[in-house]
């Protein structure tokens, strides 16, 4: 059975994939459907949804088109979520794997280093990093990655510690496989499920962290993001619910889609589940 066929057996995963593809389509189509900058003021402010042609989701406090912001924002939010999670995994997985597999002093050193990052509150560190590096998409992605890798490292380390003494790992050691091969071929594939679940949640957290940063005015001033929209609409939430509602729903759907896709990937990669069905 092909990989996709196994993936598609999980209905939820399929739904998640469709939502995700729609959001990606939104991001790609944004410049075509709304060629004007989403920052431009185009109508009078506080226009409710569906009250005027061309403004299906209304306008915001400054008279900017909410629909346009939402579509342009999709690009930034997705980019930040996926890239920063990838970077965090690239730091966290190897560190955790090495610490968990070798143990002893190596483990001690790496874990103290990890704890150094964990003792500083995530958000405070992210603010400092962005402020130092100047707000831009790159600095935001980096800052989010730097504050979110420690849990990955800890999770991977715990998984490695419990798996490294399994009999099949010992068997691999016995036939003379190198440590690198054992880590990559024997243990890592068996830690995929929790990593995938954690990663899909991390994308969500990253989108939210970016929202919080934009809310504080530390977002990239050149790009519209969902976080910025919610942040800007906070003060008027009682007068204009739609300003925070639509970007909020967009974040919710993205996170949900990612979780569903993550679960489906996990099932499809698990040989046991995929054949039993």
């Amino acid at each position, binding site marked *: 059975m092909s990989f996709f066929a196994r993936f598609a057996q999980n209905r939820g995963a399929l739904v998640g994939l469709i939502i995700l593809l729609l959001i990606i389509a939104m991001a790609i189509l944004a410049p075509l459907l709304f060629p004007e900058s989403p920052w431009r003021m185009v109508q009078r402010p506080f226009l409710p949804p569906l009250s005027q042609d061309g403004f299906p989701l209304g306008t915001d406090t400054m008279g900017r088109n909410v629909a346009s912001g939402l579509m342009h924002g999709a690009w930034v939010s997705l980019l930040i979520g996926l890239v920063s999670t990838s970077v965090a995994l690239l730091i966290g997985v190897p560190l955790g794997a090495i610490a968990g597999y070798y143990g002893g002093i190596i483990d001690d050193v790496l874990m103290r280093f990890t704890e150094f990052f964990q003792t500083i509150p995530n958000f405070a560190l992210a603010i400092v990093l962005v402020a130092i590096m100047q707000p831009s998409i790159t600095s935001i992605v980096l800052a989010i990655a730097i504050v979110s890798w420690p849990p990955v490292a800890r999770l991977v380390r715990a998984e490695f510690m419990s798996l490294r003494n399994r009999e099949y790992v010992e068997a691999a050691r016995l036939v003379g496989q190198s440590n690198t091969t054992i880590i990559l*071929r024997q243990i890592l594939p068996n830690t995929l499920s929790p990593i995938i679940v954690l990663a899909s949640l991390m994308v969500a957290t990253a989108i939210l962290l970016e929202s919080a940063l934009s809310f504080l005015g530390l977002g990239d001033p050149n790009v519209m993001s969902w976080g910025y929209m919610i942040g800007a609409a906070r003060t008027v939430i009682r007068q204009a619910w739609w300003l925070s509602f639509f970007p909020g729903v967009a974040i919710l759907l993205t996170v949900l889609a990612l979780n569903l896709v993550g679960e489906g990937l996990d099932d499809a*990669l*698990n040989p*046991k589940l995929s054949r039993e069905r």
Partner: protein
Amino acid sequence: MPITENQSADTVLSIRDLNIALPKGADRALAVEDVSYEVKRGEIMCVVGESGSGKSMAANAVMGLLPKGVNATHGEILFEGQDLLALTEKQHRALRGLKIGMIFQEPMTALNPLMRVGAQIAEVFEAHGQFNPKERQARALELLIEVGIPQPEKAIRAYPFELSGGQRQRVMIAMALALEPILLIADEPTTALDVTTQAQILELIRDLQQRRGMSVMFITHDFGVVAEIANRVCVMRHGKIVELGDAKSVLENPQDAYTQALIAAIPSNAVPPHRETSQVAPLLEIKQLNKVFRSRGGFLKPSREVRALEDVSLTLARGETVGIVGESGSGKSTLGRCVVRLEHPDSGELLLDGVNLSQLKGDALRRERHRVQMIFQDPYASLNPRTKVGMAIAQGPIANGTPKAAALKQAGELLDMVGLGASAVERFPHEFSGGQRQRIGIARALALNPELIVADEAVSALDVSIQAQVLELLEELKQRLSLSLLFITHDLRVAAHICDRIVVMQHGRIVEQGSAEQIFLAPKEAYTQDLLKAIPGREAPVAATA
């Protein structure tokens, strides 16, 4: 055709035409089909079968402890005139413990680790609202004395982890007996225990049964245990009863082909055959091997030391099978793990054909690893669930420089050799049964053409009939490929079956070693004699059939 019995007045439990349905998608529709048997007053009824035979299902139905989705669909279970299948959960709960006691297989997990033993026994009284707290403690102490726990005044305040496996099982028995039940159900109560402990627990159960006139329903997979303890036997297979009758007649004169096969499959506990011991140069020489495990001490916590191996010396000739026997904690597994260098010995020499393996490290060790391979105990844990079987076998040769295609081809041939067929290459481990997985493990060990194979409890996790097949395969491969085997086991019957020489270990030391014949016929040390005496069913007629 179902086998039935006539019901008489002294019947305690009577199961009639019982059908238990498994949920959809299971490997068969009925876990138990048309099962009828009785347990009479004051007898020990043994229900025997291999894993998956449904032997525990009927007992679970009696206790009202059937797993979710599994239901009795037909028949009745009569206990003191009432049908247990018709009871509500609340009525069942009142019956459990009070009228029917139960002991489980795993004494580790059946006790609450955070509760003192005395309190756990007292809880049984509390659950049925008997006695006041002070009387409960007194009763608990009496029970602990009755089940023969050493230092009962101390044991009553102990936590489960402070007791040995055998002592924990005694506590379980004390709890099961607390309310003086009429019927005791024992589900594989000795499977997790050492032979000598098993013998003691069996004696205790028989003793208590006679003293109290209880009836016991004893579920086991081991015909040796049956021979030790049973009055009557019920042999089950695939959810059906294949034979039912007196222990003596079933054991001496089994009617059904399956029962005959089961009894014949028990590794012979008669005297092992005489084997020629060749006087060739030793392949493996172990000299004065020492290994101490230290737990890291902490703040205000002294470090602990366990001497796993003390001055262990032995030799193994080319083409020879040496058995290492001993109880848990004897250091036999540590010895095996040192030989394959999964553990680093503290001192001593491990000479394989003159090369000292004990001092090798890093890449030098990795280059020598292919010479000694291991077959692991647990057929489920020893294969990577995400690696295809062919790859699992081929990864050794690949790591040692064989091109991938050639290694996979060789893996197919090996799978053919161990009787699985080359098509198994493309499948995942979970598609195989325990015995088949153990064959895969053997193929993997053979892939590197090792000079020595260490088999650590390689057949312990398997059913007897499968066990016999795997032992046969090992024997055959050994002859064909002129392998040398270091066979580690706690089961003397298995050792007698396959080993040329036997080494007996206790507390990290070698107690006695000699040819298998010598150890079985004329054991010199008291400990060896104890071990032999403890083999279940040794004096029973089982020996004659093998």
